[in-house]
């Protein structure tokens, strides 16, 4: 499903639900999610805007299907004479592996032979414990990316923020004034209704595509005034 069908921007001001601000925030959201390549990770995003109070509310549901990558998945670990011998098989994760091991055991205790080979002293850890270590948590990465996207999306002036972070949903409410419970109640009520799409007749005008122009276009360097002289 394309990103456009997952992102819904709605106005809480029912008198003027499809004004320019709402339509343009839909365009901005689509572009930001595409730029940061997070649209695949998002299941549904609802953005509720009340510009007169003012507050800005984002509710995002994230896909976290991927399981964490453990050390055994990307390295081969064997017990040798000198210690535990660790060979990095997938080099794309090398920085993550090194960061993890340095943090865990200390940089000076590890012997790094070359780009792929590491020796860990046997007294520091057991073979099994090492294999079970979580090197990369894709969920964390995705969530960080989504949070970055949300931060880019929220208007810059709205600096008072409250965020909640459930199993796979992220919600942020932002405003320039202290956040009040009454707003959260309004948001809850609005979220109970199914998301509503901006009708075509409103958004069509602002679609970014080449439009036919009646005017004659003159190239950058043309002797356009010559005809007028002759």
């Amino acid at each position, binding site marked *: 499903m394309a990103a456009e069908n997952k992102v819904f921007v709605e106005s809480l001001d029912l008198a003027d639900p499809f004004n*320019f601000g709402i339509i*343009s925030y839909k365009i901005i959201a689509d572009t930001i999610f595409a730029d940061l390549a997070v649209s695949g990770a998002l299941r549904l995003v609802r953005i509720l805007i009340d510009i007169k109070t003012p507050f800005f509310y984002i509710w995002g549901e994230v896909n976290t299907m991927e399981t964490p990558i453990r050390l055994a998945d990307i390295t081969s670990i064997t017990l040798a004479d000198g210690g535990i011998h660790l060979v990095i098989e997938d080099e794309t994760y090398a920085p993550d592996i090194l960061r993890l091991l340095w943090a865990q055991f200390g940089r000076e205790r590890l012997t790094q032979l070359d780009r792929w080979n590491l020796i860990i002293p046997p007294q520091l850890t057991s073979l099994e414990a090492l294999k079970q270590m979580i090197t990369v948590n894709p969920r964390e990465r995705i969530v960080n990316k989504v949070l970055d996207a949300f931060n*880019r999306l929220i208007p*810059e002036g*709205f*600096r008072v923020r409250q965020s909640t972070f459930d199993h796979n949903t992220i919600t942020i409410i932002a405003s320039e004034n202290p956040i009040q419970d009454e707003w959260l109640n309004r948001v809850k009520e609005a979220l109970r209704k199914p998301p509503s799409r901006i009708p075509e007749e409103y958004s069509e005008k602002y679609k970014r595509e080449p439009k036919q*122009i009646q005017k004659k276009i003159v190239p950058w360097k043309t002797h356009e005034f010559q005809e007028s002289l002759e």
Partner: protein
Amino acid sequence: MSTESFIFEGGPHRHELITELIEDLGGWIIQKKIMAQEITITFIIPEADIPLVREKALQLRGSLRDQPLLGTEIAVIAPTIARHHLPHLLCDIAEYLRRLGAKTNMVGLARGVGQRIAQISTYEKNVIEEHDVAVFVFGNFEYCLKEHKWKLYKDLAIPFVVTGGPDLAAVPHADYYIGNIGRLPYRFRLLDEFDKLQQIGNAVSKCARKVRAALEHDPLFLSPYAVKEEIERQIPEIQRVLSPTPIVPQIRGLRIKLPFPLFQEKIANVKIGDYLLSEIAEIAQSNFRNYILVKFLPRSQIAIKKEDNKKN
């Protein structure tokens, strides 16, 4: 004497014919650049002599383009310099105004964001008022533009253009409003988007014309370009300044990119005809770094000053 500014683009062969003609007509050559087989000359000539220069340009097989904003310094202002407002829109507008001949500075306010919290400081206002015209680039919501954002520009002493998202006829306290722009996540590439930039350019040149028209009632003693040439001749240190434009001409003054404490005396003593520069202009420290800001006095004020000096 009203003047018009142009840019000539053509081959360097026999280009001195056009430069000589401009000098004979009493115009000023602002910039002459020869790059391989091409030459670009920006110049100013009296309005009455345009046909002569057009004919000469035709003889040389070059082209002439209008530069309505030549000799103006314009501030393009965003609420802050965060990525919400920069770079796309602000850079596009600034670059387009440069193509029309202006020198543009981008100004990011410290606290221009939000509704209730939007504010502008005196220092920022002073920085903006050093320019000839200002362009404010605002966001997408009609409510913000109508109710809150006017706080930022209401008290400005220079003419300004406001741009924003919604398609409104006007916003409070502003003479010019250009809609359908707002906060955008992409660069301008389509022809109808360039039309929008042209609209901003037109509004800005209207503002510049307003400033010039106001000056015509009591004109300046000399054109800023003449003073610029004289300063370049008399102060050799200007050639060691690394900025691309060491002296920025404005409609009623100059910005000289030399440190104020060191060069204040020297600039004040630049001889222009029978006068010293300090007699025909006010010399002050700019709010930008410590550049020197020269504001020319109109003829009436120079006359008053002269009489005062005689009495003393």
